[in-house]
């Protein structure tokens, strides 16, 4: 019933030692350790990557695509997430990273920061047009999935727009078609030379585990225009290598390149605030909605959503909610220290923003906009309507916690669960392989575990087989 079974986060069973660290950190209680190995309950996983972050053995991984996949395509477009610019230290300018991307084999580079920058005014208009409060950003796919699973009553609060990645990918496809179909100088390699979207690879470069899932099972739209997802971790070394021969400080304006890039797209340097979406607070600072709130880190998000669910904070207009600590720079597949990356991003966005406004001011003075200058204003050059960025499909609740579709049966099971939970020690030790006593109770009523999986109870049984568990040791949450 529509519950996804594809997930980016997976377990390398060879590396897993069954230590139970991950089960305690999973925000949706989606992991159990069974027979010495962790296993992910696919329907509950929201691809947040918390388990990847905490696994001491590196057994939790994300199924991003191998870089070698690039060679399957005749045209290769890189879509760097804004957070990429925070990975190489503050001395490294965006233009250098752009060049490095060409050097490693991309023909075109198109910043996802562009998507963020065109989405910003659309969100602003949407917030002004609706009474729903608080509105919640849908830019982070983990947050959208979290809401589907744990806070379905907040689905109407989500801002119904595509994520910057998808907005950018769509524009890229559109531009590719335009360029290759209208300009006779460019043709696809091969017999006919005719343009074929299938042979154009659009590659999202990201620190995010959930984006892999988002392109295969999109939320709010039918099909993703992204071909594959490359992780920062996989591409970092080759980018670094490509950058090495360049000296410091020669970044800035585009210079002629000795690489294979076609560069039919305009080269952007003026995305300004779009870069800022890579860090927590960045989206808010670009939106400038008074009273808006930013929250990052999945546990902090859950705490806030719990309050909203209780009817609080209906006076807050907008919430930027990001699953990773510090925002996307804190993604599970990021390379740089997230705190340092955050500050780098802040500096890049500020300087891009000031140069963009400078350009605008100069153009205004001259009274006309030259085509080259126009490159600095992608919002004008590549226009996009608010409507085209809206969700196309409904985002629906995923009732993964449901015990049974028949309420009478579900009630019986829930009652059984409470009885079992009351007989458990309430230590939430995780030794049974579940995150807490209640989840063991749940697994028992579902026939997926047995009472002797509780080590504490089992020990009692061995020491004093006659006596049952004393009632004083019952779960503290119970009366």
């Amino acid at each position, binding site marked *: 019933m529509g519950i996804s079974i594809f997930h980016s986060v997976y377990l390398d069973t060879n590396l897993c030692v069954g230590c139970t660290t991950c089960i305690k950190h999973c925000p949706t209680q989606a992991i159990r350790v069974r027979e010495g190995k962790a296993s992910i309950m696919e329907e509950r996983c929201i691809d947040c990557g918390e388990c990847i972050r905490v696994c001491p053995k590196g057994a939790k991984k994300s199924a991003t695509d191998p870089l070698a996949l690039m060679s399957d395509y005749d045209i290769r477009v890189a879509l760097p997430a804004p957070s990429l610019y925070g990975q190489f230290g503050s001395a490294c300018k965006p233009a250098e990273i752009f060049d490095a991307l060409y050097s490693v084999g991309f023909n075109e580079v198109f910043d996802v920061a562009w998507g963020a920058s065109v989405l910003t005014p659309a969100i602003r208009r949407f917030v002004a047009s609706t009474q729903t409060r608080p509105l919640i950003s849908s830019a982070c796919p983990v947050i959208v999935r979290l809401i589907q699973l*744990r806070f*379905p*009553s907040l689905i109407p609060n989500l801002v119904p727009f595509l994520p910057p990645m998808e907005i950018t990918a769509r524009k890229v496809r559109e531009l590719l078609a335009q360029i290759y179909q209208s300009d006779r100088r460019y043709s696809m390699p091969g017999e006919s030379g005719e343009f074929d979207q299938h042979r154009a690879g659009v590659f999202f470069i990201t620190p995010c585990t959930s984006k892999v899932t988002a392109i295969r099972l999109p939320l709010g739209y039918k099909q993703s225009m992204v071909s594959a997802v490359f992780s920062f971790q996989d591409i970092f070394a080759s980018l670094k290598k490509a950058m090495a021969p360049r000296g410091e400080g020669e970044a800035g304006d585009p210079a002629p390149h000795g690489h294979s890039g076609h560069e039919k797209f305009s080269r952007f340097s003026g995305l300004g605030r779009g870069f800022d979406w890579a860090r927590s607070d960045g989206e808010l600072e670009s939106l400038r909605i008074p009273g808006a709130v930013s929250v990052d880190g999945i546990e902090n998000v859950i705490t806030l959503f*719990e*309050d909203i*669910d*209780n*009817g*609080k904070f209906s006076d807050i207009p907008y919430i930027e909610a990001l699953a990773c600590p510090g925002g996307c720079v804190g993604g599970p597949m990021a390379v740089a220290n997230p705190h340092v990356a955050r500050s780098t991003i802040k500096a890049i966005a500020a300087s891009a923003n000031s140069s963009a406004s400078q350009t605008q001011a100069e153009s205004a003075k001259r009274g006309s906009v030259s085509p080259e200058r126009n490159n600095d204003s992608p919002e004008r050059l590549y226009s996009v309507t608010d409507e085209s960025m809206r969700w196309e499909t409904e985002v629906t*609740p995923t*009732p993964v*916690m*449901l*015990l*049974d*579709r028949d*309420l*009478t049966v*579900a*009630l*019986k*099971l*829930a*009652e059984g*669960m*409470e009885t079992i939970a009351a007989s458990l020690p309430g230590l939430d030790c995780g030794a049974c392989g579940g995150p807490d006593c209640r989840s063991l109770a*749940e697994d028992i009523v579902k026939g997926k575990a047995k009472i002797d999986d509780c080590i504490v109870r089992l020990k009692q049984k061995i020491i004093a087989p006659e006596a049952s568990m004393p009632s004083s040791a019952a779960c503290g*949450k*119970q*009366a």
Partner: protein
Amino acid sequence: MKLSLSIPWMDFSAAGKASAEVKKLLARLGIEQGLVKRIAIAMYEGEMNIAIHGGGGTADIELTPDLVDIYLRDHGPGIPDIGLAMTEGYSTASEEIRNMGFGAGMGLPNMKRNADELYIESVVNQGTTVHLVFHLNRKQE
């Protein structure tokens, strides 16, 4: 089935925990979202009332296929004038509590708005019991 939860006094970090627990239970039962939201809001208000005014107390939840009954009990000062307490904006919360963003005097009226039925029993210096009733007319898909 029954669920019994304790609500500590003046522990605002724990406030909302009973409500969260009930929400989890309702999710396991597949209760319709709109109803879950109403229950959560009413329950949270009740929790806050008990935490602020009632000196702590309990929440007892009883579920049948037709009804959700929630009894919020405390042994606090009681409500001398229930009619007045039901008035929007009326509050006896201290300045300190108000400064924390609570005690806007919307608790009971808000509970009444969200519950299908609401009954209050209160004896001064003995305590208060608020009984909330919700009807489950579950949509079958």
